[in-house]
């Protein structure tokens, strides 16, 4: 009976940790995505430097989160997101016209991480 209780407790703890993980990732990616949204607004207002700073802040936040993300996410997803950050930063810093979709694509990728982890019929199936 002791073994079964320990197994059930462990199972519940893992469920709890998984729920915490989804919330933590949701919170973290929301902060990063907000920063990108801010960068987009600044860029539309013509503040290229401010936009680049916001993207850099978000990128630093993302890179600082690497050890956690490497444990929880597929490495291909991490690399693809990091590449998208650098591509957007490059475009913004070059001073060329940057389509709104480029900002949208990055925020979408960030939100997609949580979308895959969150409980939904789509993610489940």
């Amino acid at each position, binding site marked *: *009976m002791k*073994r*079964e209780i*320990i*197994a*059930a407790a*462990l*199972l519940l703890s*893992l469920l709890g940790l998984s729920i915490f993980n989804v919330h933590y990732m949701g919170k973290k990616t929301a902060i990063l995505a907000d920063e990108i949204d801010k960068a987009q607004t600044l860029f539309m207002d013509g503040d290229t430097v401010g936009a680049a700073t916001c993207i850099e802040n978000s990128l630093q936040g993302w890179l600082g989160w690497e050890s956690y993300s*490497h*444990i*929880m*996410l*597929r*490495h*291909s997803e991490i690399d693809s997101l990091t590449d998208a950050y650098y591509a957007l930063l490059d475009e913004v810093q070059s001073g060329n016209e940057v389509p709104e979709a480029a900002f949208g694509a990055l925020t979408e990728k960030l939100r997609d991480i949580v979308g895959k982890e969150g409980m939904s019929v789509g993610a489940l199936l």
Partner: protein
Amino acid sequence: MLIVFFRTLIIYVSLLFAMRLMGKRQLGELELSELVITVLISDIAAHPLQDIGIPLMNGLLPIIILLCCELIISGVIVKSNRAKEFICGKPSFLIVDGTIDQQQMKKNRVTLDELAEELRGQSVLDISRIKYAILETDGRLNIVLFPSERPATAGQLQVQTQDSGYPMIIINNGKIVPKNLLLCGKDEAWLDKQLSDRQVKNVRDVYLMSINSSGQIYFAATEGKQ
């Protein structure tokens, strides 16, 4: 490479630990739930080993979850017969009183060839000798012969038999097992005498030496040493 090395070690130790906790039955006959878990675990464990782009957590977490499920389910099975019947099914009588139950054969999808093969495996060629043939929940077929067909036991024949007891290994591949020597009430001096009686100078020259409770000794020298 280094990552693969350590990942393999981690998965290997986790699997060993998981299988150890599942118990010895896992190594032999598998119930349905155990078979499912064994197949799943071996597949899940392989992915993070082959692809270092997949986090190790993706392999470890399912193993831990499956282990917990297996422990809980096996606990429930032990406690409740209803749950055992629901999860593992119940034994089916394929032969009763020397007659094949064709409905049970169909229900369990056992062909006559398979049944005949199983019976041959247990040295039974004549179905009319069988009182019961029971298909167990782990897939084994157990056969109970009619009492008149069963071999007579020493008790039935009223023959006195000697209990040779459990043989204790005293020397295992050139090494003395002191615990067993003590358990059978012998000491090193006795062992030295036994070895010198057999013209053995060194324990390393003995492959196996065992003694049973009636004092019978089995002795085998290491090949090429004597």
